[in-house]
Each structure stands twice: as C-alpha cells, then as structure tokens.
C-alpha cells in the first residue's frame, strides 16, 4: 500500500504550571503517492506540530502516521524536509550540501555526481556549485535546500513555510519551481504556508486548520496546481474560481483570528 496515512493524531503538551495545550486533536488525512497538499491556518493551529510528527521529530500522544505500509517512529531519509531557512550547512559548498544525503548513505561519488549536477541544473544553480552557502541570496539558498532534499530521493517531501522568508518576487518564481519539481519528480508533498495565495496556487488539496484544539477545519480540492505547472502563475490568479476561493478562505481565517482575540480578551 503506497501513500501517506495520518490516522487520528492527537498531541497534548503538558506545561510546567500543570495545565496543558491540545496542539492537535484527532487529525486524520490520507495522501496518495504524488499528491501535493497545502496546509493553512492561523498561528497556533498545530500545522508545524503536524509536520514534525509526520517527519518523525515528535511522537504523538495518540494516533499514528503510516507511510507505504509501515508506521513512522522517527526521522528517516524516506521523508525529506525543507525548512524556512538556516538549515543548510554553511561549512559545505553548494555541491556538498546537495550530495549530503547520498554521501551519508555511503554512496560513491560517481553514483550520485550526475544526479546532483542534474538537480543543480534544474533549480538553476549550475554556475554556483562551488560557491559557499553564505555567498548565495535567500532565494538561491532555498533552491539548494530543495535540491538537497530531492537528491536524497525521499517518498514524501515536507515543507515548513519554505518560501516564508523570501521577498515577493523571488517567492513567485520559487512557487513555479515547486510546482515544476512536483510534476517532474512525482513526489508526495505537504507544504505549510501562511500565505492564502500560495496555499491556493500550490495545493492540489488544501486543508484549513483551526486552533485550540488544533484540528482540520475544512478541506478543498483545487484545480490550480495542475493548471499552474509550466504556466504563468499570474494567469492562474485570473481563473474564475480563484478569487471567490481566496475570499472564502481569508474570511474563514479572519474569523478564527478574531475568535482567538475574543477568547484572549475574555480570559483577561
């Protein structure tokens, strides 16, 4: 059985003062191999916790994650991770960063060098292979992070706001790149974002999460990701369904944020 199955995940953090926070409650989700899912929600809705559990960095208090028929118990090369920033190794050049996974697996240089060069071509860094990480711009660094993740050939790629730290123009280019890589490699992708537009453009499926307790509030199936592959993303935004969807989701998130604010005021 291929695909990623998230089964009734709950996560409770006990605080030192005796109270506890229900970060996730009964979150269930099934992803077929090759699907791209975007996750959206106000702060504190448990998106990052969900991703960390799928990645294997956290163990849930109840429920389980099953990938290709086996239960997830810890981090593994089958689930690659792309962070917002600062997860590259500055003491290695671009090529060594990208080839990190194969090297750790003990592969020989001639077995992975071609693939690494190809990936660097795909993300447009062919001329920067021997540069140090800190010589690259933020957008280029995220391209390295993407290439590093892909070079390891994971089944699932988990992205935690991978474009969150980029400026608006770079971000648009990177969104196209993510779509292109998704289509070319056929990987299963879960992408967390704060941006409603990004969630709409990149998500074949989109879930909106609600806070306290963290749960899935609503799920959408969207046509934009498929349309967007190889196309101008600004064209996609003129699609008749795009604007109504955006307004609907924005309104939903605004309501949640207001509810949180209201609850905080009540508590005071």
């Amino acid at each position: 059985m291929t695909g990623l199955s998230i089964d009734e995940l709950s996560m409770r953090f006990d605080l030192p003062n005796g109270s506890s926070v229900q970060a996730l409650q009964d979150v269930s989700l099934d992803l077929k191999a090759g699907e791209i899912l975007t996750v959206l929600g106000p702060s504190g809705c448990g998106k990052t916790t969900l991703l960390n559990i799928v990645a294997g960095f956290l163990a849930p208090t109840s429920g389980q994650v099953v990938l290709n028929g086996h239960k997830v118990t810890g981090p593994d090369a089958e689930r690659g991770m792309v962070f917002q920033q600062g997860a590259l190794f500055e003491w290695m050049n671009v090529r060594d960063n990208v080839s990190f996974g194969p090297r750790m697996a003990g592969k020989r240089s001639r077995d992975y060098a071609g693939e690494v060069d190809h990936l660097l071509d795909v993300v447009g860094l062919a001329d920067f292979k021997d540069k140090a990480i800190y010589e690259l711009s933020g957008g280029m660094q995220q391209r390295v992070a993407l290439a590093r993740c892909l070079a390891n050939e994971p089944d699932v790629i988990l992205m935690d706001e991978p474009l969150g730290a980029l400026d608006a123009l770079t971000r648009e280019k990177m969104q196209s790149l993510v779509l292109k890589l998704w289509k070319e490699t056929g990987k299963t992708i879960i992408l967390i974002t704060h941006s409603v537009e990004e969630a709409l453009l990149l998500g074949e499926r989109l879930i909106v999460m609600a806070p306290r307790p963290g749960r899935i509030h609503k799920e959408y199936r969207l046509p934009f990701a498929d349309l967007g592959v190889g196309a101008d993303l600004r064209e996609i935004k003129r699609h008749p369904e795009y604007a109504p969807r955006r307004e609907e989701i924005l309104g939903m998130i605004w309501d949640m944020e207001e509810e949180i604010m209201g609850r905080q005021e009540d508590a005071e």
Partner: protein
Amino acid sequence: MSGLVVLLVYVAIFAGSFVVAKFLVRRAQNDFTSLKTVTFGDESAVVSDRIASVVSILTLFLLWGAFTGSTLVPKFLHAPGPFEGVATFEYTAENADGDRDTATVTVLVHPITETVSAPEIEPGDGWAKNDSDTVGAWRSGLIRVDKNDEFTKADGARVIEINGQPIEPGGEVFTEYGRVGMSGKGTPNFVPKKGWQMEPIWLPPPEAVVKRVGEIASEGYRDSTLWEHLGYSLFRVIAGFFFGAMVGIPLGYAMGLSNWFRGWFDPIVEFMRPVPPLALIPLVIIWAGIGETGKIILLFLAALWIMAIAARSGVSGVRISKVHAAYSLGATKWQILRYVIVPNSLPDIFTGARVAMGVCWGTVVAAELVAAEKGAGMMIMVASKFQLTDIVIMGIILIGIIGFGIDMLMRWAERVLVPWKGKG
C-alpha cells in the same frame, strides 16, 4: 613634577597634531561616509584615523627619547638634562671666637658612568680654605668643607652662610647649579640640578633597550639566551593549551550532548571558571614544583575550562533545523556529530581558543614572575631585582609583541579555517 610636564607635552602634541591634520591635510571628500550629515552617534561613521595612529606611536617614542636624552632624538628636542660640569658655591664659616671667613667650593658634576678625580684648586686666603669634590649627576654628596680649614667642626667652627644666604642644620639654599642643603650635623650637602630627564636606572633611552636586546640575544641572560627564555614561555603556553583543548573540547561536547555529563561537570566547570588561574599558582607550586610540569599543569587548568565552555556553547548553538535536516537526510548520530555538530561548533571553539591563548600567555608570565628557572617572566623579574630597567622594558615589549602576535595568528587561522563564522 616631571610627570606633569610629560603629560602636558603629550596633551599638547595630541591637540596640536589634531589641528594640523584637520586644517592642513586634504582628504578624499567623496566617499560615502564623508557625505553623511549625521556622524556624531553613528558608530559606522567613526573610523580609525591613520594619521592619528602614526603620530600617536611617534609621540610615544619621541617623549621616551626626549625625556631620556636619547641620541635618536635631535638635541634641541631633549628635555633639560641633569647639570654636568664644574659647579661652584661659596660658604661662610664662623669659628668659636666669632671670626668669619669665606671660601669657595668647586664641585665637578660628572656622568655617573665615569670615574673622575676632584679638580685641582688653590687653597686661598684666610682660615677657611677652598674645597674641591666630585658628585655624580642625579646624585648628591656631603662636602666636608671644614676638613682642610684651620678651625674644624671639632674646634667649634660651623658653616653659617651659603652664597651669602644664612643656613642652619636642616635648611637649604638654591644656587644656579643646584640645591645646597645642610645635614643635621652641619655639613653642606650638594645636590646638582636634575633637570627633567629620567635617570637611566628608572627609564633607559630606547637605544639602550635595543642594544640590550642584541646583547641578550647573543650572550644570554641568566644562562639562557633571549630566544630560549621566550621559547620556554611559548612552549609552556602551547603545551598547556594543547592539553587543555584535548581534554576541554571533548568534555564540552559531552556536556552539550548528554544530561548526565552536563549534570556531573556543570558544578565543577562553573566553579572553576571564575577562579583566576593566578590563584592556582601556589597550589601548583606545592604539588608540582617550579619546573615544567607545574607550569604546564597550570596552563592546562587555565585553558581547560575556557575550552570546555566554548565547546559546550558551540554544541548548544547548533540550530535544531540543521540537526533535523540532517536526520531527514538519513544521517546517523555519529554522522551528525561529525558533519553537523563539530563544524557548527568550530567558530565558538576558535573564539574560545583565542581567549584561552591570551589567558595562558598572561598566566605563564605571571607564573614565571613567581618562580621559574627560565622564561620571559623570570627574566624581567630577576632583572628588576638588579635594577636592570632596560631588560625589564625590553621584556615587557617582547611579551606584548608575542601576545599580540598570538592573537593575530589565531584570528588569521579563524579566517582561513572557519570562513563561515557568523554567517549561519
């Protein structure tokens, strides 16, 4: 007194050269900083002025030379030196009968390095005879004027005037050649004018220090050449630091990676860190003596805690996303230690190493001051006991140069070996 003069001259040169540099030296007026209108309070607009640095160093040497009568500084810039040459004054004595007579004292004031004999003089008329004596510059001398007189102190004669001014025991009269005092027993005491220059036993001129460097470099001091003294000090620092780093870095890693290690060693490290290494010198001498072992143990202890804390903070400073990324890429624990944690901690370790080397260098000199058979600190300590100020100054300058050199070397190594420092 002359210290105040030096300070005034120094301040005058500071202010004068500022005015000269400001109004006479034209500079590029089109770089970015020069176009800033707000510079007061903008730290980035404050750059070290090259001219000021050069003048500052030159001033130090100029003052040193001028106030020590250095041959490297032109004569007209010298501060007034001590009086040298033939000084005279007159004394009037009164014998037991109330008879007064006046005679001349001729004193040859000579550089203290020369041996001279008193000038030949005529005895003169009257019962008080002319006297002649020698006094070294910067020194003073009792002049027994009654010795050759017809009535001596034993006969009840006493000196009552110098150059016509009355004087009594404990009093003094200033002449153009210097001060004439009178001892409690009534003997004149001549102190030639000292001028504003420093006597070589307090501060030798620069060329004397340079000459001494050559002498000690070739002939040695206390059975060892200069290079042996400095080499021993450096060897101790390097050996002590090496062992300190060999133990401290793994200890720091263990403390950064394991609860048990941190719990076990935290109290020890946190207690030992604020103990100045100098405070350990007596104990180390009791336990290990004043030989090489004791010195290296001391420097090992000085470097150990600094390196352990540097390595620990290097491990704690690794971003969790880097570790997570490495795990997600399939790295094992050992691979994460080798490829993520160690390289990520190197900048912190280098900073610690720089601090540790500085502390070790200071500690070794101090330990050698206390007790040693060889070494830079021992050299200057022994020299100071014999008032060999030139060796002391030379030693201080060389110790400073080596300390500075060590720091530069560490910075250079840091730039070359961990270019990613501060760029994560």
